[in-house]
């Protein structure tokens, strides 16, 4: 069993065979940094719990394609902020399947949004000058060489 410590002090126990779905944790174990417990200062308790839910399910139901598909679909039905937290955690912990799933979910959401709505979600400022913006919007003429 591996012990994981979240940024806010929560402790989680998980089987090593399950935990190694995270390449980050796998390398820490291989480099012998995991004798007592593994500190994860970049992931809070709530998010770590969710991530563990994902990797546990994917370890135990490995061959059940249909079951995993519906689990994944339900798993991503969370609010925007939580989804971003999970993405950051999956990226830090290097869990490819979870990262692909969550990125795809966000991708599917933003493809129906306006530019302003996308900026709001990612908290991005519009740094274009009006001329630059106009040029990009009108770049639709038949640009033939």
């Amino acid at each position, binding site marked *: 069993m591996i012990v994981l410590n979240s940024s806010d002090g929560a402790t989680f126990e998980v089987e090593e065979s399950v935990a190694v779905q995270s390449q980050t944790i796998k390398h820490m174990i291989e480099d012998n940094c995991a004798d007592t417990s593994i500190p994860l200062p970049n992931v809070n308790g709530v998010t770590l719990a969710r991530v563990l839910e994902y990797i546990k399910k994917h370890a135990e139901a490995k061959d059940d394609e249909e079951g995993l598909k519906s689990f994944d679909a339900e798993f991503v039905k969370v609010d925007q*902020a939580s989804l971003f937290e999970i993405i950051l955690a999956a990226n830090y912990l290097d869990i490819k399947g979870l990262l692909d799933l969550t990125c795809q979910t966000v991708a599917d959401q933003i493809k129906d949004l306006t*530019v302003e709505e996308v900026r709001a979600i990612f908290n991005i400022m519009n740094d274009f000058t009006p001329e630059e913006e106009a040029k990009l919007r009108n770049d639709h003429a038949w640009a033939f060489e």
Partner: protein
Amino acid sequence: MEALQNDKVRNRKNISRKDGEGRGAMESTSFKDFHESIIFGILVKVPPSYVYKNGRLVCRAWRDLISRDDFIVQNFMETKAELLVGGPTSRRNGFFEVKLMEVGGALQLDCKLRDCGLCRMGRPRSSCNGLLLLNHPKKEGLLQVMNLITTVGLTLPKCPSGCRHKACGSALGFDPNKKEYKVIHMYADSFGFEIFNLAGPPDAAWRIIPGPWEGLQERPYDFERFSWSDPISVNGRVLHWHVASNEYIISMDVSEEISTKTYLPNISEEIESYKYTLAELGGYLSFVYALSDIQVDIWILDDCFRGQIWSKKHSIQLDLIKYVTPENSLLPANHANALPNLSKLVAVAGRGCDILILKHENSCLYIYDMKHRVMKKFKMNMKNPMCFIPHRSSLLHWRTS
């Protein structure tokens, strides 16, 4: 969307800001890169048409990210295969209306036609990596290559053969060895194949290589009635032309530029050339033969250059088909449920490994799933659909590496 305001407040604490105010123990410089790799990971999964139309306008960082070659290539890898459907808008001019068809949904048989963003263009001929080869809509005898989303394009010089591109077989292919795109054109086989490299110098010309036959008597087709048609492209690497022969088709590897005869499979009877069509299926060439009104056989070519091995993939049998009525059918049940006469269906394209799209003489499409033997009719909102080209959207330019 209602939760947006609350999320905005929460996100301020959790999502990175450009000034590097990060979370916990992360360095400000690595945090900024880390953030970019996540945006990259999300945006590559967004369809290229949206990325181009809206993604570029979000901010400078996104605009620059989207223009990177590595982004464009990865974004293309994630796009879904669709079918480009084109039909002439009128008989008097060369304009075509073009729509993109997605096949999906439960049972993978629901079709959705959507606009491609351009109201009219010339006749589409071939698609490769999101680039389209088309006839020039106004100037007869000229071909164009264009990215359907960015509309960046190139008009090719006139073919040396003088072909007006109304009855010829052309395709856009990709040579993976030299990493370049080529247009391969065939009009008169005694004249030869005409090939144009897209990445050449501005004054580049068409090259001519010999046609597939040495003497006039070798031609399998009836001179009075035959004209070349656009070949089937398998992954943009190999082209296959139907030459109205009972024995073989003509194949060419885009990289090697040598035409060869690919002999047809040994089916249970004598092949008659008007009974078969070719289509791309799951990355392979398929030979679809209408044995009778109630049976159509589908064969797959495993490798045309090393052994020419065909295997019979499936047999569509009328009495085994589970027919699904279209939801919005206004016709009475027994009429709408009528299965088509299989010999009147022409295979026009494949979708993945198990789905075949067939066209009936009356312009309706039938989608057939080989795995479950399910067939569904799809009536399209297009006057006279005549081109069915497998297509995958991208933002690629013919010079993108």
